[in-house]
């Protein structure tokens, strides 16, 4: 396995190539653009031998992948922010059609006004579209998760979105091990080279259905989504056997009996981990990797321990009128517990940088938070 210093975007490109993707549709948007540019370069150099098509919009980019998946091909595209929003209709379509697509999303804020800072609102606003969602915290994890995503997608027949911080991860160079093709093939078999339909047994797919039929389809899809969560661990073990690395859906980092936990996803987890490795720190971190299906059981198991007094959820996103989205999901997971920990939201929406200083301030302010005061706005702590 070769070690390279690459950006998050480049990591995506390597993974997509190694996954023997057959059809890639490309449309640029900051900060994802170098994903498709790297793939274009690989295509131009003959390293990537599938189809690479520059389309005219993100709506068409995902539509293109949907078409390719209809044919039974392995397809991929990358986007961010407004591009993701523009393909909203198609996100629903892809999961309803049970297509095993993989998409990389470099998290970025949505206007108005224009803002290219890292904000998770773009992918989180799509949390209801039925896609499996992962949030990566390092360049290596991005590369590994994209490969993992193709396998999981084809296992459960649902599309998978691999999310990572715009700029903080998309453009930051880190060292990453690039797997060999045989390693990848042992985990992710090559796609079958035959159409997904039968000329002699034609079918009319995805036509209009009744309420009852729709309800049954949704029910089945719901169960499949749950199983994506259930199968994660087994697949992760397989991944470990193939690559020597493993990632938990919910990762606990820090002292076992910590009374105060941070909870976050994405690049902020790296910051918090560095913060927590300073000797003397007593807090711990819960890093959520799989956001959909939300690992309620895993989160609940940890947060229901009696020693946990409070959890500070670091959200780089805000749902207007409600608060941080990770925090909401955590609160829902904790519902029904006799003595739930206090959930304090540290909200960095807009792309506010999470620094050790800010973490100190947040910890200092946390005990003084009354039960009904929910949100600690990071920008006010600056």
């Amino acid at each position, binding site marked *: 396995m070769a070690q390279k210093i690459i950006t998050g975007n480049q990591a995506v490109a390597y993974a997509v190539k190694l996954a023997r993707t057959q059809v890639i549709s490309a449309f640029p948007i900051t900060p994802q653009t170098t994903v498709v540019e790297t793939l274009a370069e690989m295509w131009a150099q003959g390293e990537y031998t599938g189809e690479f098509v520059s389309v005219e919009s993100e709506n068409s980019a995902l539509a293109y992948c949907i078409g390719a998946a209809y044919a*039974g091909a392995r397809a991929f595209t990358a986007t961010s922010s407004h591009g993701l929003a523009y393909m909203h209709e198609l996100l629903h379509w892809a999961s*309803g*059609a*049970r297509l*095993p697509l993989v998409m990389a999303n470099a998290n970025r804020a949505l206007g108005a006004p224009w803002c290219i800072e890292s904000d998770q609102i773009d992918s989180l606003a799509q949390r209801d579209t039925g896609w499996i969602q992962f949030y990566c915290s390092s360049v290596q994890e991005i590369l590994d998760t994209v490969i993992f995503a193709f396998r999981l997608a*084809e*296992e*459960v*027949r649902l599309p998978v979105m691999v999310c990572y911080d715009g700029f903080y991860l998309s453009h930051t160079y880190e060292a990453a091990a690039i797997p060999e093709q045989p390693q990848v093939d042992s985990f992710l*078999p090559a796609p*079958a080279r035959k159409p*997904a*339909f*039968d000329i002699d*047994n034609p*079918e*009319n*797919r*995805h*036509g*209009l*259905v009744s309420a009852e*039929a729709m309800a*049954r*389809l949704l029910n*089945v*899809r719901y*169960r*499949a989504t749950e*199983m994506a969560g259930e*199968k994660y661990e087994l697949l992760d073990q397989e991944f470990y056997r193939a690559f020597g690395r493993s990632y938990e859906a919910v990762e606990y980092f820090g002292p076992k009996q910590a009374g105060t936990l941070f909870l976050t996803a994405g690049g902020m987890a790296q910051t918090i981990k560095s913060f927590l490795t300073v000797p003397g720190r007593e807090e711990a971190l819960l890093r959520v990797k799989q956001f959909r299906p939300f690992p309620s059981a895993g989160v609940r198991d940890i947060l229901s321990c009696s020693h946990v007094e409070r959890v500070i959820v670091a959200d780089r996103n805000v749902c207007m009128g409600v608060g941080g989205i990770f925090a909401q999901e955590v609160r829902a997971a904790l519902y029904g517990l006799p003595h739930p920990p206090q959930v304090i939201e540290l909200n960095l929406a807009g792309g506010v940088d999470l620094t050790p200083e800010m973490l100190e301030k947040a910890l200092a302010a946390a005990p003084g938070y009354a039960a009904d005061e929910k949100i600690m706005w990071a920008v006010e702590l600056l």
Partner: protein
Amino acid sequence: MPLPYRESSGVPYKISVGTLPVQLNKTGDWRFLTPVRREKVSPCTAQCPLHNGIAEWVEKLTDGDWAGAWQVVSRYNPFPHLTGHVCYRFCQEKCNRLHLDEAVAIGDLEKQIGAWRYNQFTPGKGSIKKIGSPPLKVAIVGSGPAGLACAYYLSLLGSEVVILEREPVAGGMLALCIPEYRLPRLVLEQELAMLRAMGVVFRCGVEVGRDISLEALQSEYQAVFLAAGATRLKQLGIDGEELPGIMNAVDYLAAVHLGRSVPAAGSVIVVGGGNAAIDAACVARLRGARVVLAYRRTREAMPAHEDEIRAAEAAGVQFLFQVQPDALLGSGGRLGKVRMVRTEVSKRGEGVTVIPGSSFTLECELLLAAAGQEPDLGFAGSNLKILDGCMTNLPGVFAGGDLCTGPGNVAEAISAGREGARAIAAYLEMETAGVDGQVFPPVYKEEAQVISYQHLNPFLFGRQGRSERPEQEAGRCLSCGRCNGCAVCWMFCPDLAVDSGADLDFLLDYCKGCGICAKECPSGVLEMEVADSGTENNHR
């Protein structure tokens, strides 16, 4: 359905898929009007004196099915080669194709079917099948087209037919009067050969009334068909008619065609306006005479067919209208001059008014009088009365053709012979279905609806002039009022509710009643109507 991706155990997978053909949904109950195939009479058939089923055999020709075309046409008219030569083609005058470009060349096509027929038929080999029923014997008096037609049908039905003809040759007016250039005698010979091969016996030179009586025929034969024609030749009724140099036009023509001697003449005047007059004028002209045809009324009033008049003019016959002979003047014991007078304009059926003081004379060596012909029933004895519909007052004795109606045309005569045979078959309780189906055509209903051009939809045809190739020419037929399987209804149905098989049945389980088929049918055969079905009442 085989899964397109790697199978994974137990993950539920379901998408919206339609695999059942939508035929389960019977959309026929949407309908409040139902298409119905209702055939009407083509104008050509209506106009034809024998109501020839033209569209039916033209359709066969379009397919290149000459045998089928013969099969159909011979039900109506056993002598298409002959009529193709001499009939005036009334059908073409009414052909709806005239409204687009030109009439279909029906007469030529009919002629070609007849010609084809003779390439298939070898006389003497009895290639026409007979139907095996105990042979009944029928006598036919007269071998003109009426008698010949009657003989054909009755012979097909297995009868023993004998035709008695007073002239030495068979054919009636066909042999005696119609000129060679209009009807080559070979054509007539071929028709007669066909009849002989079928077993029809011709006894020529036998005159009923002189050589054998009608009563004798009645006792020897199970039925008798009288088709002796209109043989009494009317006189001009003017002075000098007994002079040598005056002949009846019909006698003149018969003499020419029977090879008897005919007076040579340099100047000939033909008096009359009918086909006999024209025929005589042309024949005389062809023999080198200067010919004048004098008719007492105008050209428009002439009973002769316009085609014949023009042909005569082209041949050099001089026409004088509104003149009639007043007296025939002899010179040296034979005809030398004719005194003519002019007449006022009059219509046929009215009297003719002579203009006083308008007389003039013309040189004339031979005057051919074509003053008309009438039936002469004398041969039948005094008891015979002719009734409607080929019946007579004598049981087992039927009559048809010019004998009943006075001079008519060949098609009318053939029709009369055919209907006479039909009446005789009914009288003798014969089985009328032959080897190839019914021998007679369906009885023509006078009150049936004749289709007009407005009911057709000829758009798909486009303008196209006549073609030399018979299949192509036949393809120009619009099949007015008759379904010819063009399948335009099938072609334009959005609901695929017309079966693509031979009968083009409507699939009423699915037809929504949009009406496109009826509107687009080129032949005007389809109509939309409220059918008596419960589902349609739902929409009231």
